[in-house]
């Protein structure tokens, strides 16, 4: 190997070193530590913050979609002058199925026309000879609705978190097709507030009151001897403090829903109590207008409406006059509740309720302590190893130590470039990489020593040592990379962080331990006579 070749290789190695240094530090701005912090993503376990995994109950969206279809069908049948038809859900376990019964024989064709109308394209229609029909939502439509529900939930949660002023939150779908959302909030450790804002689903809706109030569920049952009608539901109402609980019978299908709200502001009523002013979207405003005019005090069927928040009756009001697009919700709120609730209404309600699968919070002090001990352990371990290599392998120990340092630079640079996150187990992965990096050097050096003992010249011993050790290093690295890759694919959270650093570390190691170390040996031997000796 000639000198020129070595110069080229050295330049290549220095180039690589510079590139990865750039990955760690970026464009030098501010202090050294600041630059590193800007480029290397620290996991929440290191910098403190909250990590939540939420599950969206997407099936609920299917239920409310079919509820709406039931209400629409009833209207359509009315419009077509077909009477005596019963439209409803078959049972709650199958929210996607709507059954239509009691169609008079002389209206079969008309009914079919209604059911095959444009509004019900998303349903499969089957009929029985006795004049009953079944509408089943198409699987593709369900899938589509569920996907939309999940995406809307993500958007809604993002909007709310943004309004809270959290810097660099991460909100994304989690798991494969599991309808889960991952929320990561760096620096936020007050779970109470976060959960209030995210979880008070603020699934707000306004329903027609069908009966009540009852003092208990028992009373409601007694009042409806035939059982609660399929298109109604019994809802628990919590009054103002001190007032006894009540139960209301409400129409299942809502008049307006959370997504229909355009704006909401906290305000105060004439007595200074907090309430919420809302404005509806144009479309919903029209619907609301139609509904309230049909059921106002002076209409043919006066009624009242209930405002539901998270499936609890907040307020029941008689409909005094037709309302188009704005109204007031009074519910005995505190000012904080009124503020948060209007925030939720403004950012849109979640289309389905959610539950928590997993919540983790790390306080900033614990994170800092973990970084400190992790870094101390890494540096301590590395120094001990480097000193040992120098003592045990003398001159060749320098090769190993240089390779080790370069390995660390490449590993951290990789993390900077790829935006991978360094977690606590990741630091452990770094420590393990140091161990494996040393192992490669030891394998090579031991092999060179063997060749030297067998009487080979320094140059031949180096060449053979690398050649023999290469097979072993290759096999050991590939097996570990295989298992780390599997960990990355099937693991999550800390396991993934660990796998990432391990894979990067091992790739870097193949370069440093095999290539760089070899170039240093060659450079050392290049200018020497044939009988040169090695310090190993």
């Amino acid at each position, binding site marked *: 190997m000639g000198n020129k070749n070595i110069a080229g290789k050295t330049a290549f190695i220095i180039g690589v070193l510079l590139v990865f240094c750039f990955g760690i530090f970026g464009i030098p701005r501010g202090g050294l530590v600041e630059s590193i912090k800007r480029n290397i993503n620290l996991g929440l376990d290191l910098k403190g913050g909250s990590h939540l995994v939420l599950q969206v109950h997407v099936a609920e969206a299917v239920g409310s979609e079919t509820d709406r279809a039931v209400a629409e069908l009833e209207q359509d049948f009315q419009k077509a002058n077909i009477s005596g038809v019963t439209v409803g859900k078959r049972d709650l376990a199958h929210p996607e199925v709507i059954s239509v019964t009691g169609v008079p024989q002389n209206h079969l064709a008309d009914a079919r026309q209604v059911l095959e109308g444009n509004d019900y394209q998303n349903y499969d229609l089957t009929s029985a000879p006795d004049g009953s029909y079944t509408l089943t939502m198409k699987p593709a439509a369900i899938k589509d609705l569920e996907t939309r529900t999940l995406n809307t939930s993500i958007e809604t949660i993002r909007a709310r978190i943004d309004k809270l002023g959290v810097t660099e939150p991460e909100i994304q779908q989690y798991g494969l097709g599991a309808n889960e959302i991952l929320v990561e909030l760096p620096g936020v450790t007050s779970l109470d507030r976060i959960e209030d804002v995210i979880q008070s689903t603020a699934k707000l809706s306004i329903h027609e009151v069908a009966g009540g109030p009852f003092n208990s569920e028992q009373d409601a049952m007694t009042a409806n001897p035939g059982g609660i009608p399929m298109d109604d539901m019994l809802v628990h109402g919590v009054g103002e403090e001190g007032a006894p609980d009540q139960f209301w019978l409400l129409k299942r299908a809502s008049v307006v829903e959370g997504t229909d709200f355009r704006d909401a502001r906290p305000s105060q009523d004439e007595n200074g109590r907090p309430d919420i002013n809302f404005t509806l979207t144009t479309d919903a405003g029209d619907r609301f207008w139609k509904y309230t005019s049909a059921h106002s005090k002076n209409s043919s069927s006066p009624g009242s409406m209930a405002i539901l928040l998270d499936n609890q009756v907040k307020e029941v009001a008689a409909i005094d006059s037709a309302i188009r697009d704005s109204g007031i919700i009074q519910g005995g709120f505190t000012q904080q509740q009124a503020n948060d609730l209007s925030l939720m209404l403004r950012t849109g309600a979640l289309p389905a309720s959610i539950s928590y699968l997993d*919540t983790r919070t790390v306080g900033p002090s614990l994170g800092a302590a973990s970084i400190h001990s992790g870094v101390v352990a890494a540096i301590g371990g590395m120094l001990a190893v480097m000193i040992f290599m120098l003592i045990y392998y003398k001159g060749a120990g320098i090769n190993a130590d240089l390779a080790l340092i370069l390995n660390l630079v490449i590993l951290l640079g990789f993390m900077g470039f790829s935006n991978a996150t360094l977690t606590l187990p990741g630091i452990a992965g770094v420590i393990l990489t140091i161990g494996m990096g040393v192992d490669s050097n030891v394998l090579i050096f031991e092999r060179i020593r063997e060749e030297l003992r067998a009487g080979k010249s320094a140059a031949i011993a180096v060449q053979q040592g690398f050649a023999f050790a290469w097979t072993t290093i290759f096999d050991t690295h590939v097996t570990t990379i295989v298992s780390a890759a599997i960990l990355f694919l099937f693991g999550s959270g800390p396991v993934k962080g660990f796998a990432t650093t391990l894979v990067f570390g091992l790739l870097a190691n193949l370069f440093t331990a095999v290539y760089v170390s070899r170039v240093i040996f060659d450079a050392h031997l290049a200018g020497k006579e044939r009988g040169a000796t090695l310090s190993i």
Partner: protein
Amino acid sequence: MEFFRETNIDWLGKKWYFLGFSLIFSVAGLLSILFWHHIPLGVDFKGGTQIRVAFTQQPNEDHIRHAMDAAGIHQATIQRISDPSGQAANKVIIGLPEAADTAHDTGRQRVESALAENYHDSGFTIEQVEIVGPTAGKQLQRQAEWATLYSLIGMLVYLWFRFELIYGVAAVVAVFHDTLITVGAFSLTNQDITLTVIAAILTLIGYSMNDTIVVFDRIRENLGVSRREPLHDLVNRSINQTLSRTVISSGLTFLTVLSLYLFGGEVLHGFSFALVIGILIGTYSSIAVAAPMLVAYQEWRAKRGKTVALPAAKKRAQT
């Protein structure tokens, strides 16, 4: 400096000692897994609530327990944290057995308000909260099991491809032996197996595999050179040739892991504990379990009158 030079130890001759040693530890661990502490799963897998609290003063565990009882939280476990160095910290982990998927957060709120009521003068900070619903825990547990199984299969297939099936089988058996003993150690000492501990166990699998491959690679190389030598001697010679590397590499890795165990803080305690045991047992098993299996396999084949030679090893990688 050199520690080992041309050692000539009859490793295979000691196989009965090795077998005894491995059996004692595997059986002890297995008994503990089956009848004593079982597999002590952490919150990550079991589900539940875990709250790490740092007090400004040395907390009295009885006092905390009392406060919890008074607040109607009867199933709380209270565990004092101490660093591996033995230094007692003013920290306590309060655990609640379950977090229902629906009322996910009530346990935490009750614990926090009970603490706030009882420690408003002396002060405390909530350092870490982990709440894992039963569904998420199960999912993670299943995920970890599959990940382990898949990575074992992945390595087996790779070794089959690069060496021969028997090498892969021997290596996987050795790794299984290491995992059993490590999990057994967690069960015997009743330490929680968390997600990070799973990462450590997978690391030890990788590490143990490395060690085994180094020995196997030398056996393969020697088989290629001297076909007449009895396998028993050849394997012994291979282990002795790689002994220097084994001791230095394992020793240095052990050094880094030990530094992690001693200075890594109690957050990494379980992780580094698994690695400390894993490095020791992984190094041992490549010499005491994996290599003897190759010889035992060949002897078994010879007894059945099959060809004597170990299946010809595949070619080595070219540089």
